[in-house]
């Protein structure tokens, strides 16, 4: 034993004169680190109630509960997470997965209450002292628990696409689709917003499982046009997809298309194998667009004798005569239509109600009628000189091209409008070799057309002039040309609210000569086949129907749907109208069965 070993320990005395390590303040006053994982905060206005926090919580500490402050609406389930601090382990996975970025943690970690119920609370709804706490854990930038970016869709390169009517969007391959399907958090919030309430999370799940036949079956439950909608759907679902709040929404439309692309048409009867019921009723359907054919598909499954009357030579309505083939190839549309017809739906082409058969006869001969004749008349601009022969309608140009006729547009043209028809007309014209200028009275951001359509149009060389209000059509030199006078608009805020309105600046006028002007500013319905008495009975307002529940009109046997009966005027809404009308017609034809069933439910 050395002397050193005896003396050295007394060194501890030196510490007595140094600053102590301990602090005098009560420890409760010590705030957590800025990113401390303390008690939960939820910004309930931002939260969309997707329930991902509930799903990921390994402790089952989170319930999704209805709260008085929020009700379900597009993009918000109205539910909010409720925490059970008897189970929480403060891992913060709920914060990491939060699709809306609304969930975070405060750096508060001390909380005393005698009531155990206080530790079971709805963050942001039940008042808690840390709700306004600015510090605490939140998901770090660049850290994700699901891929925020979409799998890029292979597209035809612009230099090719502008020269062909071949489909621009090439579709995902299996690997890409699986990856994209993987991004879905399966909250199902999109289902409420989809007009047809398709089982979106379920068919996306089927892609992850590689079970495309199941995916197809799931889609046909609510939509007999999956090949079509997988291409041209307005995809309201994607606009509410929670994954899109902080990243890009799941490409629901492309995934739907992917499933259809995987299944051969000849396998449809085996896979879908719809049971056809027994019925003696006869139902007539006016218009073989998506609404009419959807109604036909679901009505036929009940066993009714279904006859569709179509004024044109082919079925599909606007899908065939309005949507260009580079967006929706005929063969894909036919894949949908042929299956609907294959289950025993009868169709009469080139048969116009009011000309070949009267509406009254139809009413007499059938037990119910579903009308879905859409918006087929192009709107007029009502400006001077509009009746110039070189002013064409967008609808006509599209129908001509769809039918294989030359619309004769020339080499330098102007398109007027900002909707999808205007974009279609512009892009079709580019494919026909014309230089295209598109005049729109508002800003590009105000355009009702799909953003993708706007982007692709511009990529294909369509020149968009925004805030351009046409005021007059003038004669040009020679009968093959036409002049348009337009003025620049400035956007003025509407004092009563709403979107800013364009105001013409009369000192900023332009005149330009074109080979033709394609007007595509909107459409209205053609109800000429209905007598004014019938129109009155149907209670049509502003050329549109206002059906009651189950698409029923004021006339006993008549149900309506599609563009002229809804405010959204897109294929998926028409499809749902048809499906819903089919339900309504079944209830109307078999009232006893439904009343019985409802009584049993109660």
């Amino acid at each position, binding site marked *: 034993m050395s002397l050193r070993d005896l003396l050295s320990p007394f060194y501890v005395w030196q510490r007595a004169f140094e600053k102590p390590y301990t602090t005098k303040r009560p420890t409760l006053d010590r705030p957590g680190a800025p990113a401390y994982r303390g008690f939960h905060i939820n910004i309930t206005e931002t939260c969309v109630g997707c329930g991902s926090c509930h799903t990921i919580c390994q402790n089952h500490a989170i319930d999704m509960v209805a709260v008085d402050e929020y009700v379900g609406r597009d993009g918000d389930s109205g539910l909010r997470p409720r925490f059970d601090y008897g189970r929480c382990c403060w891992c913060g996975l709920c914060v990491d997965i939060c699709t809306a970025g609304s969930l975070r943690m405060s750096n508060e970690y001390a909380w005393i209450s005698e009531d155990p119920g206080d530790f079971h609370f709805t963050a942001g709804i039940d008042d808690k002292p840390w709700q306004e706490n600015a510090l605490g854990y939140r998901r770090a930038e660049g850290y994700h628990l699901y891929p925020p970016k979409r799998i890029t869709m292979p597209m035809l390169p612009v230099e090719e696409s502008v020269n062909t009517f071949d489909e621009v969007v090439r579709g995902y391959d299996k690997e890409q689709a699986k990856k994209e399907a993987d991004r879905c958090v399966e909250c199902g919030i999109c289902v409420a917003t989809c007009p047809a309430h398709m089982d979106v999370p379920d068919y996306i799940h089927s892609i992850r499982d590689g079970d495309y036949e199941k995916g197809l079956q799931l889609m046909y439950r609510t939509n007999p046009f999956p090949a079509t909608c997988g291409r041209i759907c307005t995809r309201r679902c994607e606009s509410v997809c929670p994954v899109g709040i902080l990243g890009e929404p799941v490409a629901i439309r492309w995934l739907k298309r992917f499933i259809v692309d995987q299944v051969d048409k000849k396998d449809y009867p085996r896979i879908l194998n719809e049971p056809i019921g027994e019925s003696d009723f006869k139902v007539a359907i006016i218009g073989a667009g998506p609404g009419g054919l959807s109604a036909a598909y679901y009505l036929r499954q009940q066993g009714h004798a279904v006859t569709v009357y179509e004024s044109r030579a082919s079925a599909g309505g606007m899908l065939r005569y309005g949507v260009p083939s580079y967006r929706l190839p005929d063969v894909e549309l036919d894949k949908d239509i042929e299956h609907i017809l294959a289950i025993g739906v009868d169709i009469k082409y080139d048969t116009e109600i009011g000309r070949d058969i009267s509406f009254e006869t139809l009413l007499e001969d059938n037990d119910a009628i579903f009308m879905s004749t859409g918006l087929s008349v192009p*709107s*007029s601009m*009502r*400006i*001077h000189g*509009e009746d110039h022969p070189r002013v064409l309608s967008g609808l006509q140009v599209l129908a001509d091209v769809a039918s294989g006729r030359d619309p004769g547009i020339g080499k330098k043209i102007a398109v007027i*409008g*900002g*909707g*999808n*028809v*205007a974009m279609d007309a512009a892009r079709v014209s580019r494919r026909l070799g014309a230089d295209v200028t598109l005049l*729109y*009275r*508002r800003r590009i951001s105000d*355009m*009702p057309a799909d953003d993708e359509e706007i982007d692709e149009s511009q990529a294909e060389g369509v020149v968009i002039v925004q805030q351009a*209000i046409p*005021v*007059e059509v003038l004669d040009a030199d020679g009968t093959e040309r036409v002049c348009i006078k337009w003025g620049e608009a400035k956007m*003025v805020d*509407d*004092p*009563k609210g*709403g979107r800013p*309105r*364009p*105001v*013409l600046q*009369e000192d900023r006028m332009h005149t330009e000569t074109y080979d033709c002007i394609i007007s*595509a*500013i*909107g*459409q*209205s319905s053609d109800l000429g086949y209905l007598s*004014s008495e019938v*129109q*009155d009975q149907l*209670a*049509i*307002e*502003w*050329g549109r129907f206002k059906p009651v529940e189950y698409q029923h009109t004021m006339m006993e046997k008549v149900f309506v749907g599609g563009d002229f009966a809804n405010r959204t*005027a897109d294929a998926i809404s028409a499809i749902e109208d048809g499906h819903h009308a089919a339900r309504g017609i079944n209830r109307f034809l078999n009232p006893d069965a439904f009343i019985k069933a409802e009584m049993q439910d109660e």
Partner: protein
Amino acid sequence: MNTIDEILDYAIDQEQQAADFYEEVAKNAETASMKKILLDFSEEEKHHKKILQAVKTGEHELTPQQEILDLKIADYLVEVEVSKNISYQDALIIAMKRERAAYELYTDIAARVPEGHLREVLDGLAREEEKHKLFFETEYDERILTDN
């Protein structure tokens, strides 16, 4: 038209005439829904009339200095004919153009009278008509110029 009351009476009468006009067109309209729209227009004119009557009794004041937004939609549209199967678009065009004409009339007269109370009343009436025009132009912008 020299006194303010005379001017207001004229304006009130004009509103009544407009209301009568829409009622007349409504009578001939083919469908019930169009009838309803035109009768709504007529009600709107009667509402205008009430406002002017309130101005006359002093219960309401005109606002001659107010800036009213002019969307200039009516200015460049073609004249349309009144018919029994008139469309909503055309009914709106007729309404816009009538309000525009009234506005121009009052502005015109105002320019010819000396500055003073009378002129203020005329300017005020012009603003009223401009407001009515904006009402129909907004409707046109919302419902007709949808571009879809």
